[in-house]
């Protein structure tokens, strides 16, 4: 168990060194949400309506946090599939190191990276007029919910990363983009056509974003559906479901790479 902790830290450290020495990727990852905040907040913002009233930038920021968290899965898939492709995973597996260490290290590194992204994005939000209104504790709880979702997505990402080649991993963007838009991230689901509204309301990302809006005291909270009214509960449950499914799946896949 002691070795599991050491091993996971060493694997995580490797990734963190990568980010420090090759900051281009970190900047690229950060540039997208920041530019989006500027485009949606300041360019489209004046034309956007928040269902139930309220300032759009206040509404937008939790949505951006959510999208950033969801996009993080792309880097998990990429890193995992590259390690598998380059034979690094094989060497980890053929060594006496703790087998949980590899995956645990992955989640530590990804959570550190995502926390940094949330921090930068939050600072950027504070500058252009977003804020939290229900106390620091609630705000931290909201960020904890985002990281809980990120943690769940690490497992989904590990599984998918072991499944696909790095070339295919690059295409994950194509699926992630609509998945993060068919949600309450940028526009209230109430303003969408019926069927899409149902999709958006039940999108796991929506639950976390809605719960965060509530905790931040930002506008756009509520709605008639059960999912919208119980967003806090779902924001805890959805990631738990992902972990319950993908933790065992990725462990199995990891132990039994058949190629």
């Amino acid at each position, binding site marked *: 168990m002691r070795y599991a902790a050491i091993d996971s830290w060493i694997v995580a450290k490797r990734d963190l060194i990568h980010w420090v020495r090759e900051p281009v990727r970190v900047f690229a990852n950060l540039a997208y949400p920041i530019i989006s905040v500027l485009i949606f907040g300041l360019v489209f913002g004046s034309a956007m309506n928040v269902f139930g009233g309220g300032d759009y930038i206040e509404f937008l920021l939790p949505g951006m946090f959510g999208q950033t968290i969801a996009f993080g899965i792309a880097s998990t898939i990429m890193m995992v599939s590259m390690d598998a492709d380059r034979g690094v995973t094989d060497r980890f597996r*053929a060594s006496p190191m703790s087998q949980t260490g590899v995956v645990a290290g992955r989640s530590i590194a990804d959570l550190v990276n995502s926390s940094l992204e949330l921090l930068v994005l939050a600072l950027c939000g504070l500058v252009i007029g977003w804020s939290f209104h229900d106390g620091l504790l609630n705000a931290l709880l909201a960020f904890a919910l985002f990281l809980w979702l990120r943690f769940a997505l690490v497992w989904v990402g590990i599984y998918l990363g072991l499944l696909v080649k790095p070339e295919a991993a690059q295409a994950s963007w194509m699926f992630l983009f609509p998945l993060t838009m068919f949600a309450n991230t940028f526009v209230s689901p109430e303003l969408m056509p019926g069927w899409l509204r149902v999709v958006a309301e039940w999108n796991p990302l929506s639950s976390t974003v809605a719960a965060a809006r509530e905790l931040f005291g930002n506008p756009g909270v509520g709605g008639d559906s059960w999912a919208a009214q119980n967003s806090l509960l779902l924001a805890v449950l959805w990631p738990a479901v992902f972990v319950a499914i993908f933790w065992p799946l990725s462990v199995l896949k990891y132990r039994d790479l058949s190629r």
Partner: protein
Amino acid sequence: MLAEGLRKMFDKKAALDGFDLAVPAGTVCGLLGPNGAGKTTAVRILATLLRLDGGRAEVAGHDVAREAPAVRRQVALNGQQSTVDGVLTGRENLVMWGRLYHLSKRQAEVRADELLEQFGLTDAAGKRAKLYSGGMRRRLDLASSFIMRPSVLFLDEPTTGLDPRNRGEVWREVKRVVAEGTTVLLTTQYLDEADQLADQIVVMDTGRVAAQGTPDQLKSKLGGDRIEVVVRDADELPVAAEVLGPDAEVDPDTFRVSVAVADRVAALTRVTSALAARGVEAEDIALRRPTLDDVFLAITGHKAVSEVRA
């Protein structure tokens, strides 16, 4: 290292179909075969990366299926691709692996410096590994396999993609660690590599052992030496073939005619004078021992993929 009747299926196709292997401690066994013969599959099973569907295997005295953790403490795997992390320095790579092999930070650093010295990388220790040449990266990769002084080393195509000079460097390192008592299972597509390094060669084809023995045994299986005549003109090929006799093999692309001979020097004299008598001026006449290429061709019925020759 011992394997008996190994079987592995991929999508109902047998990648290994009753594969046997016995490698005495402290020797090098070369696994030779074309792509898809099952070399890598065999290595992956012995390195506990793949479950076997049949048969049993023992590495360093432990059963690979039932005692995988014990096997992992004794073996090191060097795959086809480099696992060197380009963003880390050479030294950091080694320290990382040392830590993953559960050395303390201090021990890992000491061992890293020893290995950098041994593998001639001390000067480049602080440079990021992506700035290394192909041969240096390979050496660093090999060094990382030696952190724990493994009793068994799996080398899966260690010099694929390296230029001849770098291949020589890698060979030298392999020979050095073998001298220290490590057992090596080497897979390769290069016949000269097996010839250089292996005490014993196992030729694989379609998941089984097609032939095995020392390099010399395999070569003598082919019936000893061959005499080879190179002519200047394609018109002279039939005449040369007639002189060499009914078993002569003709390669019209290289103007080459060859045949196996038992009486070496006598045959050389006989052929030389016969060619002169028929007015054929040969570009080259030579006796040569069969190469492993010939062995391979004779055993499997097809040529090995061999882009680099010594």
